[in-house]
């Protein structure tokens, strides 16, 4: 199986798997993506495992994972080494300050997009999201403890809201 390191971005992966190579149907892909989101870990990484596993078992999963991770890893390692070496240079410092602020902005935009559908409906969801945000982002409480408390509460609330 020639898996030429699919760049990583989700829409790209979808186009390659479903539309070009026809390794999976659109439904299969959506189902694989649902599993990937459901379980902990990076969604795209999980997706690669599900996808590779469907095609060729454990070996397929491993190959898909390597294909996904190795090219970007090599790139960031080169960038990381350059940063180690030249990161102290004043001009580069200034550039990176700007880029870092922009990178943060991109993430903020994604958060707003994710949060938007929750606010429309009347449900406990926005409050749960706010509580998780405050506990981990502002209070900086340890993530495992926050999750041990919040996940059961949130699931119970979701169950209660559905009745």
């Amino acid at each position: 199986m020639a898996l030429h390191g699919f760049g990583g971005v989700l829409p790209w992966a979808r186009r390659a798997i479903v539309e070009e190579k026809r390794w999976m149907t659109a439904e299969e892909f959506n189902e694989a993506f649902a599993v990937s989101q459901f379980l902990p870990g990076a969604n795209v990484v999980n997706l690669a495992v599900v996808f590779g596993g469907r095609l060729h078992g454990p070996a397929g999963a491993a190959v898909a994972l390597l294909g996904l991770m190795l090219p970007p890893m090599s790139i960031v390692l080169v960038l990381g080494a350059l940063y180690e070496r030249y990161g102290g240079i004043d001009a580069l410092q200034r550039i990176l300050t700007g880029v870092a602020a922009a990178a943060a902005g991109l993430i903020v935009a994604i958060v707003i997009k994710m949060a938007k559908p929750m606010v429309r409906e009347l449900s406990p969801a926005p409050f749960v999201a706010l509580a998780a945000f405050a506990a981990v982002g502002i209070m900086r409480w340890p993530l495992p403890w926050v999750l041990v408390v919040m996940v059961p509460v949130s699931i119970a609330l979701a169950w209660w809201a559905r009745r």
Partner: protein
Amino acid sequence: MKEFDTLIVLAVQFAILSLFAIGGAMAVVPEMHRQAVDVAHWMTERQFADLFAIGQAAPGPNIIIVTLIGFKAAGIPGALVATLAMCGPTCVLTYYVSRTFDKYKDAQWRIVVQAGLVPVSVGLFGAGAFVIARAADVSAVAFAITLGTAAIAYWTRFNPLWMFAAAGLLGYLGYV
């Protein structure tokens, strides 16, 4: 010997963290920040923001930030150990669960569990974004760039790399 200790810390910390990464890598950014900056002092606040930006600008899944943190902490071995620890446990879990998951596709409990996890993951993503923005926004102008980029990314479909380039230029010219 000290490097070896760092590798062990990376492996254990990230393997545990990975199982709490609900909704993806961003969920564990606050925890990684705590470990890397506050506890182990592998890097400064500033360097954390820089590495995150490098991870974002480079192609690939955004979990790649762990590769950079591992690299900063313990060189190439650190990068490999951190990435493997972050992906290994969850991949094994995903592999086995995905084989039986189809059966429960329409099960009531699965739908409820998923409905419960979504808001938590959104909140954690927000927390990650907050921690990143706090580290990156070293000045009022940097804060304005963050807001501006967020607005542009929210309302338009510009390629983010252009925004990185523009923000980098502003920085180079000394405005940030």
